[in-house]
Every structure is written in C-alpha cells, then in structure tokens.
C-alpha cells in the first residue's frame, strides 16, 4: 500500500493505482476527466485532468500517473485550474456553443458542458471564430445511431469502447492535425466495418455527438433530457439478463440507457442492439388495448355459448396460413457487408413494402374478433376451462407459460393450473430450448442450471470451450465478454458447423457436420484418456461409473471421428489436450447442442468430457448452458414444467404435494400426482388436450412442423391467449387477453447464471391492457382458487416459503446486482459457483453416462441434398413478436433470408438476394438468399424469426426420447431457384 496526500488529505492506495483512482476511491471525485472512462484503456489525451504534484516541474495527468509514496498532489492548484479552463476553451472553440454564452444560466446538456459551466468558460460566438466546427463520419440515414460530429471533442472514448469493450473496432481516429475526425470504418459504412449497433459508443460519448435517433423522433429534447423518471428494469430478450435503465416520458419508455459500467450488473454497463434499441415494441400501434372475443360467442341466460360456424371454419379468418405465407414472394434482404455499401442502396428503395408493416398485424386478422370487456373475457375463459375440466378432466387442459414473463407470473400460472384445474400439463418453451440440457444435467449431476457465472469466464478461465452457441449474436453482451477474455489471453475453442464470429476468431474451430457432436466429444475424451490427461483425483473422488465410460469411448478414436465429423484428427487431438490441460476450462453450450432429437445424448457426451477432466466446481471452470430467454431459467425454477413444483421438487411425491396443497389452501387430492405433458407432446392428436391457455408464447411459429401445429390448434375446443399482440397463435384464439410488456410490470427474472434480478414498472399500460400478474390472479380467483396476492412482492413472499433455495430472497435484497441462487437464508450472499465440494446427488458424486454416436435422424440424400440449420439472428429474437415491431431492429433485418455458401449458390445459379425455394420432407417455403461463407458447403441456415418464411415449416418434429426436444437444428432440404 502506498500513502500519498491529495489536497491535504492522506490517502492510501495500491501502488499500481493512478492518482485519479486513488482520489475516487477516497471519495474525492472532483478531478475533471474527459478522455478517461472506467475500464477503458487509459490514453491521457484530453489533458483536462492535469494536477500539480510537489517537486514535479510539469502538471501531471491524474488519470495516467501512478501513485507513489509520499507524493503530494494538489488537484486545485492555480496552474491546474488554469489548464482546465485552457482545455475547455480550446475545445469550445470548435464546438457549437452559443447556447452556453450566457454565463452558466443555461443548463448544461451533457458531461462536457457541465465542466464548461463549472469552470465558467465563456465560448467565442460561433460567427467570430477563427476555426470551423469539427466534423467526422455521420451515419446518415441510420435507423438507430447517428452522429453530430460538430460536438465531438475527440476524446476517443467511443473508439476505445468499440475496440476494447465490444471488441469490434468499427470506429477509429482518421487523419491528423486539425482535420482529425472520428471515422466509421474505412469508407463510412458501419455495416461493412462490422458494426453491431450495440450503442456502446452512444453510452460513452460525453457530448452526445454520437446519439440514438429513435428518442429524438418521438420525444422532445426536453423530455429526453429530463425524463419524468428513470427506472431500473431487466432486458426482455436473451438470458444474459442485462439490467437496463428505462427513461420515461409521457408514461412511455423514451430511451434506454445502461447502468453505470462500475456497478455490479451482469452487463457491466453494456447492452446489445436489442437491449438498447429494441424497447419500442410496447408502443407499437399493433398493441392490443382491449380484450377480444371471437365473433360467434354470445351470452345467453348467464352462460356463454358458441353460435358460430363449426368444422374447419370454426377458427378461420381472412388470412393466409403460415404454410401459405411460406410460398409468397419475398423481397431481397438488405445488403450486407458483401459488395455494395448501404449508402449506395437506400434501404427503402430496395424494398417494395413499408418496413413497418412487414412484421405487423394485418388489419384483416382482427376481423373474426370483437372487442369485449374484461368481465366478459375472463368470465368466458373461466367458464370454458372449468367446463372442460368438468366434462373431460383436468388433463384435457394444458397451458404454455412463458419464459418472457416474470417468476411471479409463472408461479401464479402454474399454481392456477395445478391447484384450480388439477393438471400438471404445464410447460413453456424451455422444451425447445434447454430441456435436453436439463435432462442430461439431472442425470449426471442432479442439477438444472449453470454451475458458474459469466464473470468468471471473463476474468478467470484459461480455456473457453463453446459448443453450438453463436454467442456474439444470440447473447451479444456475453459474446463480448468472451472476446475480452480471448483478448486477455484465454484460449478459445469453438465447436460449430458454422463459421460464427467466435469461430472465426477462435484458436481452434472444430467445424463438424451437424449433429455429429457425440463422435467429436467422445473422440476428445478417448484421446484424453489415452494420454492420461484426465483429472484423476477428481474422477476418483467425485464421480461414479468411470469404468463404463472408459470402455464406451475406446472405439471412437480421433481418426474414426474425423471421418464422421469432418474435423481432422489432429485438430481433435489438439482441442482435447488444450481442454484437458486447462488449468481452468469452462464449458459453454447452447441450442446448437440441445436442439436435436438426441440432444440429451449430445449434452451428456459433453458433460462426460467435462467431468472426466474435472472442469467444474472451481472459479474459472464453469459449466454454462447459455439460456436463450430472459426468464427461461426462472420459469423452470418456478415449476412451469410438467414434472415439478418450484425448486425442481417432483409432483409425484405425496409429501411434497401436501406441502404445496397447504400453502395454496387446497385439498391435497386436488393436485395431480401424475407428471404432465410437455410442449411437444401436447401439440399431438393423441395428447387428449382440448382446451389451452397460452401466455406470451407463439407456438405456431416456434414449434417444429408448423403446418401440423397450425392444424392442431384449429381443432381445439377452447383456446385463450394472453399476449401483447394478435400473434400468429392468438389469431386462432377464442379469447385474447391484452397483457403487459416488460416495461409495464414489476417482477423478478432469473438469468443464465442463476441471478435473480428485480425489474420495476416504468411505463403505463396502453388502453385497457392489464398487468399479466393481475390477469392471472383474477382468473385464479374466478376459477375458485383463493389468490389474495396484491402485488408481485406479495407473490414472491409465497414463493420463498415454498422454495428452499430461494428462502433468503426479498425484494429489498434484490435491488442492485440481484442474487444468485441458492440463497437459502436471509444472510446468504448467494452462490456465484456451485459444486466446489459435492454434487447434489445422494452420494454427492456425479455419474458418467456412456453415450454412443448415432447419426442425425435425417441425413442429406439425392432428393434432399442440403442440411438446413435454424437459429437466431443478431437483430431478431424468437418468433419476432417483439423485435419485428421494434422499428430500429426490423429495419436492420426486415426480411427473411437464407445463408448459403457461395459455391453452393453458384452451382444452383443463385445470386445474393435471389429468391429460392427450400423444400423438406414436410413442407416448402420461398426465401431470398444471402451468400455467406459463415455456412459450410452443403449446409444452409434459416433464421426462425419470420412468419413469411417460417423455418419451422420445414423442421423435423421427431423427438428426443428424454426431453421431448425436436430436431430443430438439422433437417434435409432441397433448394431450387425461383424465377
């Protein structure tokens, strides 16, 4: 420790701290800074922070000068203050500052102007200046980020944020001398320079020279500068769980900023493009503002009765089916960084439709409905659910809860279905997400969540092994953290059939044939065992059944695996050795592994590898299934799955049942002891399900083999949908209940690292829309289940009573960073990583489950020579319900595209943007091509966000035997040009 004196106060600091850091740590944060920004590389270029240090002839930069013992610092010396004024005056000389001329009476508009006012510097009138205003690349016409470079002060924060936080490097300093300016790529085209529109530059800019477009288009400068309130919330998209600050004006979200970089949030101040710019969908004109009832329902003598058409027309409407939409002609996608620049091709000119309408609800969709009162709508829902239960049984009912809804909402939903309707038929889209991971992790370690934290990947791990996860697009904020870890020196190994951004920068890219992961992992494991590189102590002390495993992988030599996977044996060996040597290897995976009909086996093979090397249970050796939705972890934790109550406690155990019955005030017999049906089982003729309640899910787009699903939903006796919009699923409903968006609710969400976070209500509900929780509580009561809760916090109090590992959770404790469960007691700080001593199995040991390689169900053949892969894009999320109604996001990616390798495209005579017909054994669709080397030859990639070309029309509904996951990642298709 070093002791120095700052402004007469004795301060101690670590010797590698700077004067600025020492002063800030001591609570003296008055030294002005412009180029310095927490966590960015120090460049010391603005020179405003210079301070006097005794014995030094020159002023020294506080931000860049290390402390030394006995140093005497004066931050407010005459020379230092004069220098600050000098710097501000010079910067003002080229800054549009006439509004600052009336001596401090104006309110400063930004960080820089605050200093101008604080130091009383009066700018020269613009008309009398010797120097012209500054300039730079300005991103004209950009849908989200624009520049007004006359206010740039060249602090280069934006350049460093892009380069060092996001590890992208779009921005740079161009030219020199007075011509120096911030440039966007080499030619001003952000797309070509690899911009991801994350807005990190917006966040760090101290003058607003880089700014968001959207707020300015909808709100006044005054509203933006002085929002009515700023409310902490959690991003509604992926599982990283970024915390967001919602700025509210007019009862609407006017702007989103990210919490301070120094706060301990999962995102450390960053967001991705969706988090920062995808907030406007709640204000979209499509928002449902009143309950809707299908025309044909009428109330007679106190009871609702269906008087409308019967047969196939019963749920019809003046619309095309998704199958039909799939066949329509598509405009070409916007140009990407291949060939022409965006500037040469104005987006709107290339598209023949108004972008805003592409993903929006067509007016005709509303036709089969009439607006209703809440009383009518809830009465009808309650009546029909009760009727089906009475006439058939509780198990003729099912519900899809929602990974986009809060823990409290999922809890009340599952409570209602279990206690009021007596069925365990409750599931949500985790089925099509990490269900196979959960099955595999349950089998091996009896756990259902990640063992570690995202922070340890960035800070502590030596080797990052990623299988089937396109992190920089699907979880961009975590993707950036992985890139930072790679920059700091961690070794990156990516196993993926596609050359994703991370694969391209990885030290080793294992580009295997889709679905051959078991062969790859078994071969790695076999090689490790052959070399004796396994974690012998770990295997001996903490695992079981190692012998069986050893035998099972013997035959899968790297050479054999090379033939199956297409990855050279040498590469497999190298990867295996790096993985095993660690010393701290973290294992990450996502949909690329799980969405297979043998997904459980794929994940098991990876877990075997991980356990054999002992790469779990230490800080830096994390097991991290990366969750896809902001509350897919929480919805599962809350028991919105068919087999368990909260905390993964089985529904089959009468003792556990009693406990819940008591808590809910119902007779134990009213709760079913039978496990319920899963999403993919429900949507089947033989499921016996006749009535459904769906909250915030859109299975018609997200389920495999859509045409089948569409048919199934039409045949239901009763369907109620609670959502923000009239989705593709909701249009088949009998009753549609307008719910609330993330911005309009208070509640908690669990991210991919088990972090429970609290989001506060920011915006007003539009029209008569209601809070999701409020709707569920009222419906529960109408169904005769006493549900006296008045608020989300009330519900949480009940949750913690029935959930042992959440027992220490209170809303108060969740403020700030939140808590990583288990939080068993009110003084537990939460758990950053698990399993340092034992696994939660009976004997505390993990088990190896040998798995054999089996080829994917559908292999390419002569008729269907390509393998189609599906997944997410950076700008969209899931079935597009939200992102396609977010103006900025949808403008970046307005139409469905298919990625195809240039050589394959050339062989088929397809050019960039050309329409193609894709046909699988189930269905076909047309889509425009995007030529890209990200996909290997013989493979194509189709995102599943677009109803116009819904990838799931083609996917194979064959199911994983354990988790009932469908084969979403791999189906054989044929591709033909369309003229």
């Amino acid at each position: 420790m070093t002791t120095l004196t700052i402004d007469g106060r004795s301060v101690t600091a670590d010797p590698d701290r700077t004067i600025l850091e020492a002063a800030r740590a001591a609570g003296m944060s008055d030294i002005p800074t412009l180029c310095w920004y927490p966590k960015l590389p120090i460049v010391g270029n603005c020179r405003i922070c210079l301070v006097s240090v005794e014995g030094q002839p020159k002023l020294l930069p506080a931000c860049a000068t290390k402390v030394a013992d006995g140093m005497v610092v004066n931050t407010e010396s005459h020379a230092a203050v004069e220098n600050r004024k000098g710097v501000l005056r010079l910067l003002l000389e080229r800054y549009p500052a006439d509004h600052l001329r009336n001596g401090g009476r104006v309110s400063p508009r930004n960080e820089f102007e605050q200093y101008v006012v604080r130091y009383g510097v009066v700018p020269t009138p613009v008309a009398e200046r010797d120097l012209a205003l500054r300039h730079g690349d300005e991103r004209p016409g950009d849908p989200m980020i624009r520049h007004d470079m006359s206010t740039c002060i060249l602090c280069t924060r934006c350049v460093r944020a892009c380069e060092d936080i996001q590890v992208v490097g779009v921005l740079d300093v161009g030219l020199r001398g007075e011509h120096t300016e911030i440039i966007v790529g080499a030619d001003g085209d952000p797309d070509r320079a690899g911009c991801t529109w994350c807005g990190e530059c917006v966040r760090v800019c101290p003058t607003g020279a880089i700014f968001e477009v959207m707020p300015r288009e909808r709100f006044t400068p005054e509203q933006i500068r002085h929002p009515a309130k700023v409310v902490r919330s959690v991003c509604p998209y992926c599982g990283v769980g970024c915390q967001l600050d919602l700025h509210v004006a007019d009862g609407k979200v006017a702007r989103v900023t990210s919490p301070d970089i120094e706060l301990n949030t999962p995102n450390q101040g960053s967001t991705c493009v969706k988090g920062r710019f995808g907030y406007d969908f709640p204000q979209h004109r499509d928002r449902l503002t009143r309950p809707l009832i299908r025309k044909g329902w009428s109330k007679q003598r106190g009871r609702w009765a269906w008087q409308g058409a019967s047969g196939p027309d019963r749920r019809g409407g003046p619309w095309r089916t998704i199958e039909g939409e799939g066949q329509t002609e598509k405009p070409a996608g916007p140009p990407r960084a291949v060939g022409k620049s965006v500037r040469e091709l104005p987006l709107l000119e290339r598209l023949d439709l108004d972008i805003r309408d592409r993903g929006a609800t067509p007016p005709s969709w509303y036709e089969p409905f009439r607006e209703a009162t809440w009383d009518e709508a809830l009465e009808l829902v309650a009546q029909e659910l009760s009727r089906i239960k009475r006439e058939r049984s509780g198990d003729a009912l099912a519900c899809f809860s929602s990974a986009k809804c809060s823990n409290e909402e999922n809890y009340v939903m599952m409570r209602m279905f279990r206690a009021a309707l007596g069925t365990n038929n409750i599931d949500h889209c985790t089925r099509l997400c990490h269900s196979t991971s959960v099955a595999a992790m349950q089998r091996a370690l009896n756990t259902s969540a990640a063992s570690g934290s995202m922070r340890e990947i960035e800070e502590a791990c030596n080797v990052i092994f990623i299988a089937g996860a396109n992190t920089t697009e699907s979880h961009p904020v975590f993707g950036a953290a992985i890139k930072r870890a790679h920059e700091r020196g961690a070794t990156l190994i990516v196993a993926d059939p596609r050359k994703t951004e991370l694969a391209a920068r990885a030290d080793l890219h294992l580009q295997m044939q889709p679905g051959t992961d078991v062969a790859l992992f078994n071969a790695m494991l076999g090689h490790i065992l052959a070399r004796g590189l396994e974690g012998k102590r770990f295997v001996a002390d903490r695992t079981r059944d190692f012998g069986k495993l050893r035998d099972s992988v013997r035959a899968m030599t790297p050479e054999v695996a090379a033939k199956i996977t297409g990855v050279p044996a040498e590469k497999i060996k190298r990867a295996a050795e790096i993985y095993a040597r660690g010393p701290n290897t973290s294992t990450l995976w996502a949909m690329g592994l799980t969405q297979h009909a043998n997904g459980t086996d794929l994940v098991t093979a990876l877990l075997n590898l991980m356990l054999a090397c002992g790469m779990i249970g230490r800080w830096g050796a994390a097991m991290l299934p990366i969750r896809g939705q902001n509350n897919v972890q929480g919805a599962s934790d809350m028991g919105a799955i068919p087999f368990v109550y909260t905390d993964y406690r089985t529904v089959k155990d009468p003792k556990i049942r009693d406990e819940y019955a008591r808590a809910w005030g119902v007779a134990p017999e009213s709760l079913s002891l039978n496990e319920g049906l899963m999403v993919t089982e429900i949507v089947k003729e033989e499921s016996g399900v006749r009535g459904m309640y769906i909250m915030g899910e859109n299975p018609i787009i997200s389920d495999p083999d859509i045409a089948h699903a569409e048919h199934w939903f039409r045949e239901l006796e009763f369907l109620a949908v609670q959502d923000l919009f009239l989705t593709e699923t909701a249009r088949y409903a009998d009753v549609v209940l307008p719910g609330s968006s993330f911005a309009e609710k208070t509640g908690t969400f669990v991210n991919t690292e088990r972090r429970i976070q609290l989001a506060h209500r920011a915006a007003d509900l539009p029209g008569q829309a209601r809070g999701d929780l409020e709707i569920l509580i009222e419906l529960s009561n109408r169904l005769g289940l006493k549900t006296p809760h008045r608020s989300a916090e009330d519900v949480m109090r009940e949750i913690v009573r029935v959930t042992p590992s959440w027992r220490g959770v209170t809303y108060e404790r969740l403020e700030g960073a939140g808590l990583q469960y288990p939080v068993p007691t009110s003084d537990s700080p939460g758990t950053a990583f698990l399993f340092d001593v034992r696994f939660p199995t009976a004997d505390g040991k993990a088990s190896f489950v040998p798995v054999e390689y089996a080829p994917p169900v559908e292999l390419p053949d002569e008729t269907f020579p390509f393998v189609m892969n599906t997944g997410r894009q950076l700008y969209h999320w899931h079935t597009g319900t939200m992102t396609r109604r977010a103006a900025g996001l949808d403008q970046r990616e307005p139409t469905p595209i298919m990625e195809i390798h240039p050589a394959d495209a050339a062989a088929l005579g397809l050019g960039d943007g050309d329409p193609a017909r894709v046909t699988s054994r189930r269905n076909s669709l047309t889509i425009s091509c995007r030529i890209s080397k990200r996909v290997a030859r013989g493979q194509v990639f189709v995102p599943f966000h677009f109803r116009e070309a819904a990838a799931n029309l083609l996917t194979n509904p064959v199911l994983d035997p354990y988790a009932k996951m469908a084969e979403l990642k791999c189906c054989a298709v044929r591709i033909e040009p369309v003229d």
Partner: protein
Amino acid sequence: MGYPHKPHAKETALLSKHFGDPDARTYKGWAKRGGYEAWKQAQTMAPAAITDVVKESGLRGRGGAGFPTGLKWSFMPKEKKKPHYLCVNADESEPGTFKDREIMRWTPHALLEGTLIAMRAIQAEVGYIYIRGEFTEPYAIMEQALAEATKAGVLGGHKIHLHRGAGAYICGEETAMMNSIEGKRGNPRIKPPFPAAFGVFGMPTTINNVETLAAVPHILRQGAAWYKAMSLSNPKSTGTKLFSVCGHVRLPGNYEVTMGFPLKDLLHELCGGMRPGRTLKACIPGGSSVPILNREESEGCLLDYEGCVEKGTMLGSGGVIVFDDSADMVYQIMRLARFYAHESCAQCTQCREGTAWTTKILERILAGQGKMADLDLLLDLSDNMTGKTICVLSDSCAAPVVSGIKKFRTEFEDYIAGRKQPVMVA
C-alpha cells in the same frame, strides 16, 4: 568534409569524412576504410563494457533531446527475461535538418556498424531502422548496404529490419515510432512506462538517432578519452556534431564541427556569410522546434547543449535555419506553426486545437485582419500549449511563436496596424 562544398579547415570531419565518396558506400570500400573493426572489437566485449565506454565518452543523443547515450543504454534490463529491441530513428523530418540523410546516403555501413554495436550493448536481437518515407534514395542505399553486410556475414545472428515511414513527422517521436512499427496509428504514448521497460511490442527497447549511432564505432575504436577530449567549451558536450545549415547563407549544407564551436564562425566563415548586401537577422540553431535567436544572441552563441541553453534556446537536432534582413518573421513563424498544425497527431487537446488556432491567427494577422489583442491571445495560447501535452510537439509550435513575438514584436504590429502590405496566404 563540408559536403557538398569543399572541406573547411575549421571542420572536424569524423562522421562526414567520406561524404561524397561513392566507394565508401560499398561493403568492400567501407572495410578498406577500417569499417566493421569496431564491431569486431565489440563482439569481444561484454555488453556492459561497451555501455561503459560510451558512457565515459560523454556522447549525447543527436536526435534532439541530448540525453546521454550510455546512460540510456544502461536503463535496459541487465538480466534478460524478454526480447530486447533497438529502434534506430532515421525519420529525420524536422524542418531544416538533413544530416541523418547524408549519413545514410554516404556511409550506410557506419550506421549499420553503430547499430550492431548498440544492439550488443543492450542485448537486442532485433533492430528496426525507421527511415523517413520520403527518403527513397537513402532507403535504397541502406537496403543495398544491409544486403551486403548480411551476405558478408557481419550481422552475427542479429536481425535488422528497415522500416519505411509513411510521411508523418510525429513518427520521429520515439514512442510514436514504436506504435508505427507495431502497425498502429503513430500516436506518442504516455510516459511512464519508458521504452526501456515497455517499448515496441511491449518489450524493453532503446531508441537512438542515426548520428548518435554513427559516432559509436569511432568511440570504440579510438577510445572514450579521445572522444571526450573533443570539446571546445563545456565538458558536458563532447565529440563532433553535424550541423545542417539552410536559409540565407551563401553556402548552405552540412558542416561537422567540434562541440562548442561558435555559431558566428559557422555562419560567417564555413558557410561563407550572408548573401551580398544582406545582414543576419535571426537564426534557429536546433531545427524548427527551438526558440529563435536574434542577431546578437546568434553571434554570441556557442554550439553545444549548454551554450544554446544559455542563449535561451536549444541545440536540438542541429538544423540551423538562417534569416537575413529580408525575411518576414511573421510569415516565417506562420509557416512553422502551420507545419506543426499539419503534423500534430492530434491526441492532445492543447496541441490539436492550439496549433491550428495559432496558425489561423497568424494567417489572419498576415492578411491584415489582426487585432492587437491577438498577440496576447497568441502568447496565452502558447502558454497553454507548453508543458502540458503527451509529447513536446505542442511546445515546439509554441517556442518560435513566443520567442518571435518577444524579439520581433514590431513586425507583428506593423501588419496589425496596416503599416505593412497584407500577405494573402493560401
């Protein structure tokens, strides 16, 4: 040899002895003239012993700052844990300075030999010679010499790369040069850390000027005492120095004299004096970055580090710029300021904005649109630009402005008051 003129008796030709003699350029010719003997000798010496000799000789950096060379070498880690690098500063871009160019043109092997000796002294395996981009001819000659030396096997396992600059003056600043070698924008780095600890590619690095290194073989061959004895005034300034004289003298060119040589004699005797009918008005003795001397100061100035400081200026790079009574000092100072405004790497606020603004004000004064208050503004700006930035380019711009206004104020006032015909500057 006062190349391109006949040698003058008062010169001490050490580095310039073979200027103008094409045979000295070749490996064979150089070997005939005793070339690479010092290198052979150095290879028998311990690195620290070489450093000690150089330290003892009193040799100081000829790139501008005059830092003792042996002392600089001794900052390199003694115990080698990482690769060490030597960067040779051949970026010579300072207005009025053209001595390194001639060393490379005529005696490329002298530079290579000095470079090798220095590399041994600091235990560097790799050396970069960073040559100003515009120096196409010297580059070709250096390339040829390096090829010959490599072929002759004199490099002894050392690796020397020639690196061409891309036309930025700032890349002559040592830390900017390191960034440039790394392929980055040539911005000077904040110091500390100093190059000896964290230099090119983050490894311990020493940077030396061409002329500095060219002197080293002579020191090894003839001894520290011999070199040290070459001093006409202050014992802290030893050896010979090349002065590139340009401007209003009859015989501009490079002249090599012993440290402490009178500036007056350099101008009036070696350079043949002013043009007919003209008298000396002012002189910048150390390249464009140092304060201007008026006639009296110039004629009293002894050319060594201390002598220049005594007159309120600096020896700098030894580029002597001479103005006779026909010179328009306001215009000349504007030209200097404009150079710095153009060459600023533009990281530091004071430098980026200060150099540009200074230039604009001077242009305005020349155009007859100045105000008396502008002179105070200029001084104020210069004060703002001095001692506050990452490197000293900013100070370099202020130096001629401040000294110019102080010593030639009436010339400025003449423009402002309209007593002088405005000059339109493009």
